């Protein structure tokens, strides 16, 4: 029996301390998943709570076909997407062409000023990145998940995950490299 299986068995027997442990271990992941999709900070904690309540409710049907963390992340992702739909927050479908279009320079004087600080510039680039791209990028690099796990969480085919990751990285690195070389010339 794995550690996750023991933990789940204890929770199913009604052990609340075990459930508290599960929350402590996964709260960071859930919080990050939700915040990457939903910008409204006032709803953030409530959505995270709802995710864990759903986890507790559905734990009996979890069959260990995937890792517990992947399953919890899937619930968090779907819950956040449902919240966005309920609040009529647009979930954009971004094609390769329109993604490139987003990053074409139409710099306002304010943006030119921001460009002086590379981290601030990177922030503006990340803000332009559609939520799904940002999600794939962070799940892969920061949460250390593989293509299959990301596909399972987001419901995207593995090929799409790879594509999003490749496109996001490519466009960001090219913009940053251009900016860095501009700074070096100055």
């Amino acid at each position, binding site marked *: 029996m794995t550690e996750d299986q023991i933990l789940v068995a204890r929770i199913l027997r009604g052990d*609340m301390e075990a*459930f*508290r442990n599960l*929350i*402590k271990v996964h*709260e960071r992941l859930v*919080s*990050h998943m939700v*915040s*990457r999709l939903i910008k409204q*900070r006032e709803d*953030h*904690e409530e959505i*995270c*709570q709802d995710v*864990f*309540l759903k986890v*507790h409710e559905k734990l009996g049907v979890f069959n260990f076909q995937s890792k517990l963390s992947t399953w919890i992340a899937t619930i968090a992702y779907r819950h956040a997407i449902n919240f966005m739909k309920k609040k009529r927050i647009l979930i954009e479908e971004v094609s390769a062409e329109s993604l490139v279009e987003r990053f074409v320079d139409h710099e306002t004087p304010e943006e030119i000023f921001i460009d002086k600080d*590379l*981290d601030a510039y*990177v*922030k503006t*680039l*990340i803000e332009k990145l559609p939520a799904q791209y*940002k999600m794939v*990028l*962070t799940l*892969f*690099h*920061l949460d250390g998940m593989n293509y299959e796990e990301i596909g399972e969480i987001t419901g995207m085919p593995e090929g799409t995950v*790879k594509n999003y*990751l*490749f496109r996001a*990285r490519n466009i*960001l*690195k090219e913009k*940053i*490299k251009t900016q*860095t070389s501009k700074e070096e010339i100055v």
Partner: protein
Amino acid sequence: MNIDKEKLKGQMEEEKTLSPITTEDVEAIGRVLAVLENEDKSIQLSSNFSDSIIKQVMHKRAKENRFGWFGYLAGIVGLIVMLIISLSLVEFKFDLGFLKGIANYSGLFLFGIAFICLLNILEKRFIRFSSE
């Protein structure tokens, strides 16, 4: 910046691209990830986050228990009511049936009970003992 550059380079090289991954590429993506990591860190859940979830689960469970007991009692009352209605509809008359017939053979009845008890004792003493 807590991003492991070597690991990041490895991850980027997993995909077969036409051009090789340069140090500048890794630096650029490392910077993006550092910003994203800081963004994640800036969002904190309250210190009593797990307590409030546990409280909600307990509250829900108590509510479900109350509803469960209510359902259980309502079921028993419903069954009794249905039984009374059914009995009155079919005009059921209570009858001891075959028991009336064997009422005169009380000795045989007692022998039956004693015989069953004896079989049980024998089974416990000898058969179970030998199989162990």
